[in-house]
């Protein structure tokens, strides 16, 4: 009898401590999210009070209306355009490179692969100034094109690495069979490999999109009014002339995480691979 009781105590203890640990962790990571969302419904009175209002007593949609009406339209669509274009470009350019790195064995392919990867680790500040001069010289400030290309630069390295991993997993027999039947490499690539790696392309595209969506420094420097993206709106609300506008900023931040949230929930499986550049599958 005593054995059963002590066994039960151990089992309960072991699992409870895991549950407690997980609850604490979830609280730590979840509370700021809850705070952000609940703050977005707060009335100006309750933005900054002490003690803080964990549950708003007055609700308003005013913050969202301000954000959407005054600012939102251009910023949101600019972000959408820049992110979509750079994602598509990164996928296109990246898949070509990834295929050659995956299938063609040539001297120095590893070095090339790593050189491409190292681009992702480049601090944006290092190229911000030259790019600013360059873009200004070409009179392309506040234009989508330079920003899209810079985002593509950072995205393409991630795309190459992720896609190479995905391509490596596709067995070569199908391609070899097709080549025996007379397809050349290009057709094999476009008709066989691309469709087979569609999930990989989607996952890679998602990571690229999120990176571009969240990027601030380049957008801040290279755009002014017409091409400004969402993170710039955050900067303006946080560092405006009148100090931080807490209400609208909560509304904006809540809205801005929605795309990422949706995506994350759908793509949980591939997260580890995407984050470690394919090192962990």
């Amino acid at each position, binding site marked *: 009898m005593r054995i059963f009781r002590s066994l039960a105590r151990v089992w309960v203890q072991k699992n409870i401590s895991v549950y407690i640990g997980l609850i604490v962790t979830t609280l730590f*990571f979840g509370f700021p999210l809850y705070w952000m969302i609940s703050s977005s419904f707060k009335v100006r009175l309750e933005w900054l009070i002490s003690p803080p209002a964990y549950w708003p007593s007055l609700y308003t949609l005013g913050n969202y209306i301000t954000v959407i009406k005054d600012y939102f339209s251009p910023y949101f669509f600019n972000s959408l355009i820049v992110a979509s274009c750079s994602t598509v470009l990164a996928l296109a350019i990246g898949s070509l490179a990834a295929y050659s790195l995956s299938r063609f064995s040539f001297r120095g392919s590893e070095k090339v692969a790593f050189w491409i990867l190292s681009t992702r680790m480049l601090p944006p500040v290092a190229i911000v100034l030259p790019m600013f001069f360059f873009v200004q010289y070409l009179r392309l400030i506040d234009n989508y094109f330079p920003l899209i290309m810079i985002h593509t630069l950072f995205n393409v390295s991630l795309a190459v690495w992720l896609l190479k991993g995905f391509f490596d997993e596709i067995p070569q027999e199908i391609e070899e069979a097709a080549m025996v039947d007379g397809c050349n490499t290009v057709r094999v690539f476009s008709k066989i490999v691309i469709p087979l790696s569609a999930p990989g392309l989607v996952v890679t595209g998602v990571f690229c999109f999120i990176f571009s969506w969240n990027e601030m420094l380049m957008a801040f420097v290279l755009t002014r009014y017409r091409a400004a993206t969402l993170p710039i709106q955050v900067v303006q609300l946080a560092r405006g002339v009148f100090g931080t506008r807490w209400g609208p900023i909560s509304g904006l931040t809540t809205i801005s995480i929605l795309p990422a949230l949706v995506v994350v929930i759908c793509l949980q499986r591939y997260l580890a691979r995407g984050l470690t550049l394919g090192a962990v599958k």
Partner: protein
Amino acid sequence: MRQRPLLWLAPVIAVILAFGVFPLGYSLVLSFFKWDLAGESAPTFVGLQNFRDILLTDHRFWANIRNTILIVIIGVVFQLIIGLGTALLLVKEIKAKVLFRTVLVVPMMIAPVVVGAIWKNLFHYNAGPVNHLLSLLGLDRIDWLSGFPEGVFAIIIADTWEWTPFIAIALLAGLQSLPQEPFEAAQIDGASKWQIFRFLTLPLIKPIVIIVLLLRVIDLFKIFDTVFILTGGGPGYSTETISVYIYKVGLSYFRVGYSSALSYILLFIVTVPIIFLHRYFSSEAKL
């Protein structure tokens, strides 16, 4: 069938050359000049004088280095410990694991500027929940965003909140891919949990830990967005990091040569972990 890898690689190489190598080269050239766009507009060649000034006489630079290194070291240590702990918790078979993982994953997907904005509110002296929690625990309120060292810790905490999930998820995937047999054998042999952890688990996940660690070190050296929003560099430059300094010198003060020199010093610093990462990846590839 002749393979022509160069053709396939040409677009990538073109993009990297045009938007990466070319600006870097231009920046290198600029770093040898003294060129203040705000004052006299003629650039003068000064050789390595910029670098000498930075390394020998620039207090602000060294304060930045101090801040950045603190952020990197403390940040990585915090994040590894919490991340590993979380991964170990998630490895167990628990109901509602998916719920925990979903919440866990969200912070990483949020823009660093947004993270800065959220924590700027959380760290507010009077109205922020963090100080409220402290006061409930009977501790003094901390003026988080008021400078060194509180501001640096605020940055570390915000960054930890955003990126620890990355470490947790990567380590979790690594833990889940470990083979079961060694663990079963160890248990049969009577090893304690601590022994299993120290002599079996840790060595087996070492590869992933190293990759994750190097990636985080590189990213933390580059930290910009979060700092920009949280403290903007702090009162004066007390919580400033290297990237913020480079940005201000180049695009606020328009001391173009000096800023380029600074950015090359940052590049040198960041190259070190990149070289380690390269060695690691190539040794992995040989396996």
